[in-house]
């Protein structure tokens, strides 16, 4: 019986190890192969090189002498810039609007509160392609030119929801008697908000903003539909590359993007764990 239990436990642990291997080995693979010198078949190791990184970062390399490559690099840099501009703007807008809504729904009981809640959960449940085409039809019908502006607006529609949910979770964990305690000790509503509510809410708002930033940087589907012909973002650039044919420097881009989002996500999760 004991052997049986140990066996069951052992196989469960082995399974979980496999589970994590499934998640992380593919990611580790690109990290390794991003240093592979083989320009034709990326999964056949022919030697170590940092050339692809140099290439992506715009340093002069043997390959970059080639005019075709040079062009794709400048496109990449432009895509990266676009992504950063979009992510920064959407994060700012979505954080303000999403937090405001979270606070409103938490503090006030009003007619239509449930409706707002439902609307907030819709973008998270809807397949993003639906929102993408809806926005496309809307922008084209209302005569707005597709471009950075429409991407920013379009992304905000669902990023507000993410911020809302993170901030609401934070608010739900807050003790309402603390506000009473503050009022009892002589602080008016504004002082109470500034000194008691906001400091406790801040990790939630920062967390929501980080999440919005990452998701904005990563969004492909909605952006893809409303970007128009002139604007390309980083995920769109990679997507187009994948459809056209894979070049080795995509590995380097991928690794840099992974590192970037790992860092931001770790920072966010670290901040959250510290607050507890």
């Amino acid at each position, binding site marked *: 019986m004991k052997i049986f239990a140990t066996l069951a436990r052992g196989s469960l642990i082995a399974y979980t190890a496999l589970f994590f291997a499934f998640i992380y080995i593919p990611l580790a693979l690109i990290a390794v192969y991003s240093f592979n010198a083989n320009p034709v078949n990326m999964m056949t190791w022919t030697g170590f090189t940092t050339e692809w990184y140099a290439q992506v970062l715009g340093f002069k390399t043997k390959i970059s002498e080639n005019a075709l490559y040079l062009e794709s690099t400048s496109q990449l840099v432009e895509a990266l810039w676009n992504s950063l501009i979009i992510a920064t703007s959407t994060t700012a807008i979505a954080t303000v609007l999403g937090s405001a809504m979270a606070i409103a729904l938490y503090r006030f009981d009003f007619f239509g509160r449930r409706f707002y809640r439902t609307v907030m959960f819709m973008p998270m449940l809807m397949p993003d392609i639906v929102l993408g085409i809806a926005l496309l039809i809307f922008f084209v019908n209302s005569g707005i030119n597709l471009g950075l502006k429409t991407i920013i607006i379009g992304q905000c529609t669902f990023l507000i929801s993410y911020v809302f949910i993170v901030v609401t979770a934070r608010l739900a964990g807050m*003790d309402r*008697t*603390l506000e*009473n*305690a*503050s*009022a*009892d*000790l*002589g*602080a*008016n509503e504004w*002082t*109470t908000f500034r*000194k*008691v509510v906001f*400091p*406790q809410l801040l990790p939630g708002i920062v967390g929501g903003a980080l999440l919005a930033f990452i998701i904005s940087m990563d969004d492909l589907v909605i952006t893809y539909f409303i970007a128009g012909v002139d604007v390309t973002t980083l995920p769109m650039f990679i997507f187009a590359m994948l459809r056209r044919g894979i070049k080795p420097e995509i590995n380097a881009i991928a690794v840099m993007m992974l590192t970037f989002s790992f860092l931001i996500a770790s920072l966010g999760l670290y901040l959250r764990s510290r607050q507890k």
Partner: protein
Amino acid sequence: MRDSIVRLDKAAKAFATPEGQTVTALDAIDLDVSRNEFLTLLGPSGCGKTTLLQAISGFVQLDGGRILIDGEDMTDRPPYRRPVNTVFQNYALFPHMTVGENTGYALEVAGVVKAERTKRVGDALRMVGLEGMEGRKPRQLSGGQQQRVALARAIIARPKLLLLDEPLSALDKNLRQSMQIELKTLQHELGISFIFVTHDQQEALTMSDRVAVLSGGRIQQLDTPRAIYDQPKNSFVATFVGASNLFEGEAGSGQLVTRDGLSISHGRQGATGAATALIRPEQFFIAQADDSTPSLDVDLEQIVFVGSTFELFGRTATGRRVIAEIPAMRRSLVGEIEQTRRARLAYDPAAVHLLPAEAA
């Protein structure tokens, strides 16, 4: 008339339940609390005691009536403009502030300069025995220490009145008892009135100058602890505070006869009409079978040893339950009746309290 610090004048409040009914939390309550008084609001949950407290602190808006604090009408004032501070049930310490910042909060929002604030925070913390703990965070403290921070925070601005909302309910029994005494001492030192809310009758009797027993949004009785215990005004107070044996019946001079034919002697000569006699369990003593003092004969169902006393659960011939408490010193007597399973429970008629009859 005593010097009044808080006066409630027909304070009324009703809540709507989610099921669509209305619950009367405060039923036109009149209450006067005097300066330097330790008043306890005692009652079961839902009796209105917390609502009453929140009406005074300003978190509940009255539907009707007025609240005066130190002669000033406070009815429409927000909580932050009332000279009243509260010790909350779960302390409500701000988790993102240190003990010092928590304690000094009332002074900070009132605009007291830093130097004076630091000094007064130190004084307040010393008063509750937490000297030098300014830099800690609330979560690094034990439950008892958190309790003390909450107390220091509430008294630092020298309120005219301190409200305590079941502040000891989260502490374990020993700590609770020592805090009871400390609170009482602190109240004397500060010289301000305390209104203390609890559902623990022992706590109420131990600490208070006066106790208000609440039920159904009304003050059932407002009296000194002794009067509450010895002369309850009605059967609710009698049963809620302490254990009791109640005998409803028709009172005559010196005698009350219950419907099932038991006769209870009492000391009130002129009594007539429907009434209820109260005999506390500890008023009974075990009498010999031929004893002539007023007594009840019971069949014993259960004898429980609880340390300082034996609790006797018996039934009269008419089937009525009777509880008696016999000091543990009398263990030989108890040994006897344990054999026979019968006992004659005698009592002193002068100690029997008569309650007026109540409409069912």
